[in-house]
């Protein structure tokens, strides 16, 4: 057979579907529906070899129950463990929410050849626009940028949540607010009596950003409905479509480009994404 096989499989395991064993080291409830999980591989070798890029995701197996993709939300420079922020919404995520510290899970990955291009973004102003759980994948980028702060110009986060209680990563947000080299603006749809911040959708805040067109990058992640409106606002600012990056979500059954559920045009969100430039997305019907 003239099968021209080029192995890209990262692990030398003989199957791309086999997860490595890992342990949930710490669980924090960070909102009524989200928990933050610290995860460490059982085998030190796997932990040491686990290098990921901001925007990449892992496939997490709850043994006997199922597997789902989750974005890594911790700092890529942290080699001791990695973090996932998971919403209690279904089968696998629900089971994770019922688990205790010390529980064993399976991890495959990291996956996604399309991640946030932090190298290309150097020497640029960065706007990060997140809606709801979309803040999770952006957190790994924010933390990377803060780790290498001198490589970037102005950094601004615009974050929209439904209710004040749904705001994720509150400790991090407080910490960001205390620093003077990063600005963060949080807005909620439904304020409560104590809320003193912005009210309304996050798109509303984009016109206020006054970063110059030439050296600004924007990154976006949020629920599916958000993208269209954010793109309209960003286009009004004339940011280059090659400097706007969006992380997409689709149904995934494998994470390695085989099950095809995340197919958009000639792209697969799992291997070509999950992060795409606006230019790529404009050329992909149905991406938004």
């Amino acid at each position, binding site marked *: *057979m*003239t*099968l*021209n*096989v*080029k*192995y*890209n*499989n990262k692990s030398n*395991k*003989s*199957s*791309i*579907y*086999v*997860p*490595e*064993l890992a342990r949930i080291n710490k669980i924090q409830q960070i909102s009524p529906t989200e928990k933050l999980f610290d995860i460490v591989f059982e085998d030190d070798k796997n932990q040491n070899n686990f290098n990921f890029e901001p925007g990449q995701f892992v496939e997490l*197996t*709850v*043994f*006997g*129950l*199922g*597997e*789902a993709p989750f974005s890594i939300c911790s700092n890529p420079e942290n080699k001791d463990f990695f973090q996932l922020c998971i919403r209690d*919404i*279904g089968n696998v*995520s629900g089971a994770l929410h019922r688990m205790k510290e010390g529980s*064993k899970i*399976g991890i495959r990955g990291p996956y996604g050849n399309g991640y946030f291009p932090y190298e290309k973004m150097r020497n640029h102003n960065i706007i990060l626009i997140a809606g709801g759980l979309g803040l999770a994948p952006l957190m790994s980028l924010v933390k990377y940028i803060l780790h290498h702060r001198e490589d970037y110009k102005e950094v601004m986060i615009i974050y929209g949540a439904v209710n004040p209680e749904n705001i994720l990563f509150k400790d991090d947000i407080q910490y960001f607010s205390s620093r003077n080299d990063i600005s963060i603006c949080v807005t909620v749809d439904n304020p409560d009596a104590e809320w003193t911040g912005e009210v309304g959708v996050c798109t509303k805040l984009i016109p206020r950003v006054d970063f110059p067109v030439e050296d600004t990058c924007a990154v976006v992640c949020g*629920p*599916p409905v958000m993208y269209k409106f954010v793109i309209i606002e960003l286009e009004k600012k004339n940011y280059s479509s090659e400097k706007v990056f969006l992380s997409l*979500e*689709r*149904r995934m*059954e*494998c994470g*390695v*480009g*085989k*099950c*095809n*559920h995340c*197919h958009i*045009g*000639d792209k*697969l969100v799992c*291997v070509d994404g999950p992060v795409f430039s606006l230019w790529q997305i404009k050329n992909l*019907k*149905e991406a938004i």
Partner: protein
Amino acid sequence: MLYKVMGRDVFKDFVKSLISNYEFIGPKRKDKAVHDFVPIKDISELDINYKRTTIPPAKKILFPPDEKLVAYEVNEKIKVRPVVESSEKVLFGINAWDINGMNFLDRFFVTDFVDENYLERRKKLIVIGMDSEPTETNFSPSMDSEYAKDGFDLYITELKDRYFIRINTARGDEILKKYSVTENALVKDFKDYNNYMDNYRKKFKLDVNIKDFYDNFELIYDDDEFWEKVAKNCYSCGSCNLACPTCFCFNVKDDIELNLKDGNKTREWDSCMLPEYGLVAGGHNFRPDKENRLKQRYRCKLKTFLDKFGRYACVGCGRCIEVCLAKINIADNINSIKKEVSV
């Protein structure tokens, strides 16, 4: 490629020895209309004069409808191991478009990440091709698939009084040497083979206008009226996917046995025409309408892999046309897109 010829009398013995020496899979009559590729124990079961088959043979063997991928034990310690099962088999009598369909799957399953489950089976599959009668819905020549130039060990073409054999692998050559007697093909054999192919190609009656599809599809893509008309009767049943030699979508599920200790991951064929295909947790569906799903299927078959691999993911076998109760016809639709854009 080496070229040999084999006498008619020798051919039968050759097939018999293959049946007795290998796990042998070939076409067997199922009922009046269809054949099925099944394990053959005796040459009397084999019927190479087939026209229609049930599920495409290669897909069934290389990418079974459900397949265990990973096994694990959940005890004090959790043990996880890959399940990659394969054994040497002869696939006999598969036709050119189904070989081309398999060649597509080959490319697909080793791109980006290598799928060992598929690849191991493929490496151990000895493929012996033979032409079969095209159905009325077959448009393989339009898709460049009525002839296979790769993906097989031996390709046997039946001429009047002998067989013309194309040998594509060393393995094929060895098998031929071991179980048969052949002679080198000469000018006359090539001439007869050419005549045969000219006549064979005339048997395909359906032509599709695929050449301009790549660009025209983008124009027609947003024409809701067109797609509503085309998809109007679709039941979203997914039969077109099941019958297709190049469809590869699957779901993966985790199960635990009743002993609550042994578990596994299994993949099962899925279908892009089913409403749940684009559904994510929380209830959002990325392709809620049948119109969207149908045009996605056409994009996948006729465009996506032209961008990725420089080839179509459709070999024109016509199976999806035959199985569709709603009479949705990919060949007609390709032609009407051309017409729609040209007028």
